[in-house]
């Protein structure tokens, strides 16, 4: 063995270990210290510009709002088999509130809540059949949000064709958004033609395929649609950005106010059909801290995002109609999803 090479190797190894050890001193301890809030994502990331991100922002807001010192941290689930383990990591660390995002975590959350009655759980998009005292399911009437967006689109369309580019029908909130959207458009514009497409692939790609979203949005524009609803994570965002490149066409975002999450869509984004996950999560965290959180289902707010640059094209007449629609939805005289 040539001694030179050996030295090089030894040097490399030592260098690596020294640099590693130099930073090894600050022992990351998860959420230790203060009132700790843990968030477990669905198989997605906290920067997904969609519901995981919205929930994470809510958790941070909740931590900031409560009077005591509080910390929030998250684990991003890689595989849905890990839901229970990821919740357990926070439990072992003494978290006081655990937020789980997405209906996929429903069962794991219920089991953890039963086994840990002292810890408060918030399950986003998780319907509770049997109320547990320490588990609040944060639910949203997506069809209502979709209906309001559709009602606006029905009034704004000039071609009388509105399109929707959607994630998958395997995820019920997406279906509710779509049905609400179509019914809303027909409510304000009986002549309207609604053309909608779900992503044709599996659950694994349906929310992560902006290329398909963009191509499909274009296909809808080419046959006369002038307002497109993009609902389905990155797939829907692809549709919004495509519409932004078409002069005169409008687009509608979903979940949060996408004016802030997809700036590329500014040229077309008239509004977003919002479910205010962040507000709901922050509010429930506040209740959990104050000891007033009720088990069972908690209904969060839905609504339309501000019109931003398009404030001028929404006439007073339209606003009045929207107000009527909103009132009708609230008092139950309008059903966003008949059948």
């Amino acid at each position, binding site marked *: 063995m040539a001694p030179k090479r050996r030295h090089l190797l030894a040097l490399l190894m030592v260098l690596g270990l020294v640099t590693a050890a130099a930073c090894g001193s600050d022992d*990351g301890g998860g959420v230790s210290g203060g009132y700790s809030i843990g968030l477990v994502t669905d198989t997605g990331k906290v920067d997904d510009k969609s519901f995981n991100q919205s929930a994470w922002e809510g958790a941070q807001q909740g931590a900031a709002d409560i009077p005591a010192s509080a910390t929030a941290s998250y684990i991003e689930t890689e595989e849905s088999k890990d839901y229970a383990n990821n919740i357990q990591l926070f439990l072992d660390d003494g978290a006081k509130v655990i937020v789980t995002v997405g209906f996929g975590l429903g069962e794991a959350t219920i089991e953890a809540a039963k086994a840990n009655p002292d810890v408060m759980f918030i399950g986003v998009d998780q319907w509770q059949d049997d109320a547990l005292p320490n588990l609040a399911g944060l639910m949203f009437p997506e069809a209502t949000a979709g209906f309001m967006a559709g009602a606006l689109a029905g009034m704004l369309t000039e071609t009388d064709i509105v399109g929707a580019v959607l994630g998958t029908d395997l995820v019920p909130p997406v279906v509710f958004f779509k049905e609400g959207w179509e019914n809303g458009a027909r409510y304000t514009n009986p002549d309207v033609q609604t053309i909608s497409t779900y992503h044709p692939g599996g659950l694994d790609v349906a929310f992560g395929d902006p290329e398909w979203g963009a191509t499909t949005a274009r296909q809808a524009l080419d046959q006369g649609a002038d307002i497109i609803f993009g609902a389905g994570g990155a797939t829907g965002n692809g549709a919004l950005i495509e519409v932004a490149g078409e002069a005169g066409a409008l687009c509608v975002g979903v979940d949060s106010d996408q004016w802030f999450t997809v700036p590329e869509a500014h040229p077309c984004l008239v509004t977003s059909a919002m479910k205010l996950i962040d507000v709901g999560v922050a509010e429930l965290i506040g209740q959990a801290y104050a000891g007033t959180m009720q088990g069972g289902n908690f209904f969060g707010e839905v609504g339309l995002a501000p019109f931003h640059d398009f404030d001028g094209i929404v006439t007073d007449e339209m606003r009045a109609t929207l107000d009527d629609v909103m009132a009708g939805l609230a008092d139950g005289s309008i059903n966003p999803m008949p059948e």
Partner: protein
Amino acid sequence: MSRSLLRTVATPLAAVVFGLLIGAVLILSQNASPITAYSALVVGGLGDADSLLRTLQKATPLIFGGLAVAFAFKAGMFNIGGQGQLLVGAVFAAGVGFGVDGLPMVVHLPAALVAGALAGAVWGGIAGALKATTGAHEVIVTIMLNFVAGNLTDWLSANPWKDNSGNNIVARTPLVEDSATIPTLGAVPVGFVLALVVAAACWFVLERTTYGFEVRSVGHNRNAAQYSGIKVGWIMASTMAVAGMLAGLGGAVESLGVDGRFEAGVNVGLGFEGITIALLARANPLGVIPAALLVGLMEAGASRMQFKAGVAPELIDVIQALILFFVAAPIIIRWVLRMRADNSEQLQLGAGWGRS
């Protein structure tokens, strides 16, 4: 003997060390601590009985997926279809698992496993049979069948086989009956034991039987095999069916032993990881076991690594790529460690691609 064993182990070990070292640089670039991260990774995968169980559970489908790719490699075929074969295996095993009741376990569990294996065999066999009869390239057909399987299994679990208990809205089948559930003994899932047995059986079939000899002959030189009287078409078709069966079994074990049901989107990526495993193992059925354990360990510990050190779990992918690279390019490791070249080490799988 011990010297040659040392040589066999030295390269992969060094590859792991190099992969982790470069990974440490990436961790540092994110202002996190590699030592905290790696110790969390190991504790998360081996720290207690639960962690060990999870590591073994993660390794199980990887062994099956790795075997599905490795077996086809031996016949000179590239099976990118492990994902689809695994999915149909998982859904049909679950179908028999929840759809039939009143059977004793000794009948029900094997029946459910066989259903998964058969479904996988059919899925792989389609590609093999088309290759043998029409010359359709197995790479095209298996890629396409992956997409078809994804849609088919999603639809089955969302419609005819959907779990309608309570207000369930998730696309999933009901839980399989107890009589079709694969038990866990302490920290060892029985499915993992089954994977070990199947890996040994693959080795035996390939190395010690006439059929295995014919498979390897076809893989080595298709024309020569034809000339020496081997039915090449049959070997290609049957090898793909066996490969599909292996992946299908992996899916069955997931449904019956880990998830307790089939759920849309839950088994995503498992089949594709089989390619990595088979390559790490250099297409050796027994080598698949340590390769799967290593990757399983990293995946089981990844959540804890993010929790403790704030390092995104994708780091695991980068480290896997690095390890694979160093294992496949032993010349680099030999250069650093000053080991002597061993001609038997260089492996060629790609050669299998160019034969149709």
